[in-house]
């Protein structure tokens, strides 16, 4: 029961983060704000993965002090999250580089003013 509550609560948070992050991107007036909104969207995937891998009452899958055969939360999900974190860091690095160049070129970081290619 407790597991169910945590699952659905986490699920709701993930959906909320996903949509509010998208809203941030859509309404953004500054490229740095846009990058951070993208990290909010990404945070939704962290939350979703975390609740999917969570097992109520079970410890982390580190078998230093506990018996080697005991159950633990899902280590696969944690590995996926690690990949997800790296993906985020790198995509943000690329986007920030783009931001710096856009700012240098146009003296603006407003994505709505960067429209050299309409039509």
């Amino acid at each position: 029961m407790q597991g169910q509550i945590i699952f659905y609560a986490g699920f709701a948070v993930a959906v909320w983060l996903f949509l509010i992050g998208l809203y941030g991107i859509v309404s953004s007036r500054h490229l740095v704000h846009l990058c951070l909104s993208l990290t909010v969207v990404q945070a939704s995937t962290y939350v979703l993965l975390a609740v999917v891998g969570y097992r109520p009452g079970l410890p982390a899958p580190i078998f230093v002090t506990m018996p080697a055969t005991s159950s633990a939360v899902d280590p696969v999900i944690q590995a996926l999250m690690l990949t997800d974190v790296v993906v985020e860091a790198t995509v943000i690095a690329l986007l920030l580089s783009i931001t710096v160049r856009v700012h240098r070129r146009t003296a603006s970081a407003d994505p709505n003013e960067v429209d050299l290619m309409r039509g």
Partner: protein
Amino acid sequence: MSRIWRATVFVTGAAGIAVLFGLVCGTLPGPLAVRNRYAEAINSRVYAQRNVTDAVSAVNFDYRGFDTVGEEFILFVSVLGSISLLRMTSEKTDGLLRDAAEPSRDVPASDAIRLWILIMIAPKVLFGIYIVTHGQLTPGGGFQGGVILATAALMLYLGESFAVFRKVVSRPAVEIAEAVGAGGFLLLGMIAWFWGKPFLTNVLPLGKTHELTSGGTMPLISLATGLEVTAGFVLLLFAFLEETLTVRGEE
């Protein structure tokens, strides 16, 4: 689109996506016996099969090591991509704007800050190395430790200046370190291939559980990843700082 139109389109779409997410709630989470299969398979075998105690690192560097190859190269290519995006040829800097809002480094950091930061660097390096090398035993590994190590270099810039940063950290060396880290992972995977086993097979002796050398190729892969992550993030610092300084004409 005008702001109103854009907002209308977005809100409609977002409501739809929320409904779509809502539709799956009835089915999830699946029966524990089904959805726990992968977790159970790893957790129950990792200790006996690989002599390591951190199941997450075992998944990262062994069971699903091939994902980590891709992951490491996402980092690799993003670092080089950022360098490529930020690079500039000297004759093309003229048209670029100088940014008045850039943080000025004219006022030197106070001695207290400099001293504290310099004191912090050594423990940071030690801690980073500890995290990189203990990945198979406790939470950590090449990715986490690498980021900590890279922040040690960042401290140099914060406490001193880019000039000092550049004097202490040799850029060609960092570039080679990045290449060695990225290539090293692949070569570790290829050891097994030359042996006639599939790529990334853990062919080295598995060592004794709870020891640094346990896990066969895992600690080595972790080291390679740590090297690549450290070097990658330091190169990113180089790229961003150099871009700023070139435009400000401080070369």
